């Protein structure tokens, strides 16, 4: 139990502690930040033997037991694969970031990275869907913080905002999907949900559930048409792009799809929605990647394309599809992570990421060139590298789909086209940058960076090579359990580097040879390609987003002017009118009739006198012509109420009332000289009648509310319970206090939070006004 909690808490704790490092250790902050992911990685490894035997672990901590919400964790093959990816690549990214040029706010940068890591580990290890959702949103927030890290740059601010809006829109859909799932099954625990798979698929809510979950996953994993946030996210520092926006966070959507695959797949709707979107995204992403000159933008679109491929494979829902998808997910993390880090190095050395300004770098940067070659060719699917194996599985899975239906024949075709485009842009990165003529502007004396900076991409590229030649150990330990936790036992079949002249090999050959031949014609190809943003700028999704945002701004401004006119009396009038119309009228109509006749016989004479005085005081407040007079009369009313509490034997309330009365009197006196003079004469007769009407209506509503609350006719009173249990359960004889700090402690927690926010609000308003 403690172990798995530690895996999530360590990075979060690290992110809190890092900025507190003493100044003398600040220079090594990147080294200290290695600690949490390193330990997390080792801790995750300890689960490996048991998981690869097929065990799973499930732990529960209660959170809101009455609502069925608990913090529970689940480790199976899939979550362990992700945990290892997140913590393992996390170590490499943090190691690399130490060398990456971030001059300012280094501790903050590493703190954000660790914050993300904790949140992401929470997503993949959560078993309760509400907990998963909370962590899911936390990853969006950390991504927002990291994209906007260079917050003085316009592009960073734009990208951060865009990503947050789109991914949290997806998060909203996901939450709706979770609620619907709960409606159908009555549980929020993933392992329990698995037993209800049939009921979910038969339910009339199934299309809605599927839609919500798929939208959530697509927004997170940058699937068409939500892909537009990912290219703008490239404004983040490069290690962030490598980590969040290619290796891990954007895979959260795929993780979600994989998690829900046993529950939701097996229907036509699943197949059409998930693989349709995936295939479309794969083609759109690849086509757009060809048109990019900025290497990071190229990698961003290529990431979109590869994510689409994996999505499509999960959409197949077959064992073969899941196998290929999971394997490719792992491979993509390795080669794409490496490529991003290497582009970071190229930018670091050459000072530009523009493809047109780069060339012939292989002479000066032999090591960087070799590593880029391995990673890019792995992406292209060249034999003896890991990408080749997962592409083979991809072709195989698409051929298996041929039996599926009339239109299934397009799948293998599309698979080959997508891969062919991949080969072209992989060559653009490798051949275009490192070979050919070096542009004149480029200095001649370029050379490889330090070994430390090369280490992280070297390890990732090494993984590509290792997995391509010798996949067996990792396959048995990590991938097989992950696949069988999605698609059931025995879904995994051992990989083979060569299995004869079969269909997949032929498809690979077509894609590789075709891509290599077409690489030379990349420019005309690019011009021939239909491109929405270029041909019809007004119709592109980006333009739609921008227009939507502008409309939102305008609406916000209009509403702001209407609701917050700057006059307190206008705001009050709106608030009270809405209260009366939306709640008061129906409430009185419904509950007012249920009230019995009023029994005024039990009112003592002194109570009657006091209440008469109170009413007179209230009228006097409204009548006062000077602000000071009104404030003092109001104080008098408050003191009378306090006296009433004493007479009704409520010392706690009386004391509180007395103190609050004093406090508000002082507050009023402090702000009195800022108040405008009373404008009674300025109000027309009609205006005064309107105000009187509202006042009477609100007063009447409160009276009815009190009478209903006191009549005990709707619900039995819980006062007796509190009276009996306050000493035995709460250990206090003062029932009021026990209610406040114990029985209703949650309310109090909320109230003191509100008080804090109000106080800070007052402080901010006054201090900001001064400019």
């Amino acid at each position, binding site marked *: 139990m403690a172990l798995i909690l530690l895996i999530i808490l360590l990075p979060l704790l690290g992110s809190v502690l890092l900025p507190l490092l003493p100044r003398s250790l600040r220079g090594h902050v990147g080294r200290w930040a290695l600690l949490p992911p390193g330990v997390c990685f080792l801790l995750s490894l300890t689960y490996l033997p048991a998981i690869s035997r097929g065990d799973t672990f499930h732990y529960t901590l209660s959170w809101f037991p009455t609502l069925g919400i608990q913090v529970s964790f689940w480790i199976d093959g899939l979550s362990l694969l992700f945990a290892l990816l997140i913590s393992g690549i996390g170590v490499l990214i943090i190691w690399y970031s130490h060398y990456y040029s971030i001059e300012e706010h280094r501790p903050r940068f590493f703190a954000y990275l660790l914050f993300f890591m904790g949140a992401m580990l929470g997503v993949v290890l959560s078993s309760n869907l509400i907990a998963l959702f909370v962590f899911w949103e936390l990853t969006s927030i950390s991504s927002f913080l990291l994209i906007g890290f260079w917050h003085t740059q316009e592009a960073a601010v734009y990208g951060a905002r865009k990503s947050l809006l789109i991914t949290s829109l997806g998060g909203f859909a996901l939450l709706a999907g979770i609620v619907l799932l709960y409606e159908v099954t009555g549980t929020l625990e993933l392992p329990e949900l698995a037993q209800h798979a049939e009921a979910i698929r038969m339910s009339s809510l199934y299309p809605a559930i599927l839609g919500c979950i798929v939208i959530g996953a697509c927004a997170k994993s940058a699937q068409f048409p939500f892909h537009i946030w990912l290219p703008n996210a490239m404004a983040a520092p490069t290690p962030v792009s490598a980590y969040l926006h290619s290796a891990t966070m954007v895979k959260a959507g795929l993780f979600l799809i994989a998690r829900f695959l046993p529950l939701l797949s097996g229907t036509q709707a699943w197949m059409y929605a998930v693989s349709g979107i995936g295939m479309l995204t794969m083609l759109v992403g690849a086509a757009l990647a060809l048109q990019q000159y900025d290497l990071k933008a190229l990698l961003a679109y290529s990431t979109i394309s590869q994510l689409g491929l994996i999505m499509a494979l999960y959409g197949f829902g077959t064992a073969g599809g899941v196998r290929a998808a999971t394997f490719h997910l792992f491979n993509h993390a390795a080669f794409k992570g490496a490529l991003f880090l290497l582009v970071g190095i190229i930018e670091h050395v050459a000072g530009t990421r523009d493809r047109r300004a780069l060339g012939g770098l292989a002479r000066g940067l032999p090591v960087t060139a070799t590593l880029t070659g391995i990673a890019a060719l792995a992406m292209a699917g060249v034999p003896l590298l890991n990408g080749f194996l997962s592409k083979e599985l991809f072709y195989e899975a698409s051929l298996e789909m041929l039996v599926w239906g009339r239109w299934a024949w397009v799948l293998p075709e599309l698979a080959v086209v997508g891969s062919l485009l991949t080969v072209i842009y992989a060559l653009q990165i490798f051949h275009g940058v490192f070979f050919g003529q070096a542009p004149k502007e480029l200095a001649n004396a370029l050379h490889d960076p330090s070994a430390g900076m090369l280490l992280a991409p070297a390890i990732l590229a090494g993984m590509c090579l290792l997995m391509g030649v010798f996949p067996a150990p990792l396959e048995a330990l990590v991938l097989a359990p992950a696949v069988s936790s999605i698609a059931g036992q025995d879904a995994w079949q051992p990989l083979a580097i060569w299995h004869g002249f079969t269909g997949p090999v032929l498809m690979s050959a077509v894609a590789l040879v075709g891509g290599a031949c077409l690489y030379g014609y990349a420019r005309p190809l690019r011009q021939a390609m239909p491109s929405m943003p270029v041909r019809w700028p007004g119709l592109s999704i980006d333009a739609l987003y921008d227009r939507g945002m502008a409309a939102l701004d305008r609406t916000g401004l209009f509403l702001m002017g209407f609701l917050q006119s700057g006059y307190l009396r206008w705001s009050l009038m709106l608030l009270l009118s809405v209260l009366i119309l939306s709640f008061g009228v129906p409430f009185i109509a419904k509950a007012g009739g249920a009230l019995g006749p009023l029994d005024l016989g039990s009112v003592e004479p002194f109570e009657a006198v006091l209440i008469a005085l109170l009413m007179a005081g209230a009228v006097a407040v409204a009548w006062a012509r000077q602000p000071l007079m009104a404030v003092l009369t109001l104080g008098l009313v408050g003191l009378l109420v306090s006296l009433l509490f004493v007479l009704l034997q409520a010392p706690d309330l009386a004391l509180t009332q007395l103190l609050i009365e004093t406090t508000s009197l002082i507050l009023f006196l402090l702000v009195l000289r*800022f108040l405008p003079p009373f404008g009674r004469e300025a109000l027309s007769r009609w205006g005064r009648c309107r105000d009187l009407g509202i006042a009477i209506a609100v007063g009447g509503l409160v009276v009815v509310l009190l009478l209903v609350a006191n009549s005990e006719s709707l619900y039995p009173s819980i006062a007796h319970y509190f009276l009996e249990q306050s000493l035995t359960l*709460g*250990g206090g004889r003062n029932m009021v206090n026990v209610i406040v700090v*114990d029985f209703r402690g949650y309310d109090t*927690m909320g109230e003191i939070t509100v008080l804090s926010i109000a106080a800070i609000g007052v402080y901010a308003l006054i201090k900001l006004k001064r400019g």
Partner: protein
Amino acid sequence: MSSLILITVARLIFFLILLFSLYLLLRGHHSPGGGFIAGVMTALGILLEAIATDLRDVRLVFRVDPRLLIGVGLLTALTTGLVALLLGYPFLTSTFGHVHVPPLGDLEIATAFFFDLGVYFVVVGGTLLMMITLAEE
């Protein structure tokens, strides 16, 4: 506009008010009192001193930043809730026990008291922050 009478009286009763507010805080679980009332009273006591001396001395005497108090209070309250959670009970579960201290006799210690202490700090900090900010205007 500080008056000598006000200053003298304020200095005299300042400590009385603080003592009384602490008394209210400690007895709150059994008799009228509690963190909220005690907090307001403490803040009012400090404010009285502040108004009497025209705010100059308040920063000198009362060195703690009210904003910090708010944070400390919220954290204290939250921690009592989290401790329960870590021990496997629902968030904010409270318990109590009895200790025997020779001269005082039987003393009850309730974990809810720490929660109340958090309320006390938030109220002192919040009230002071609002009032001092407004008074400085």
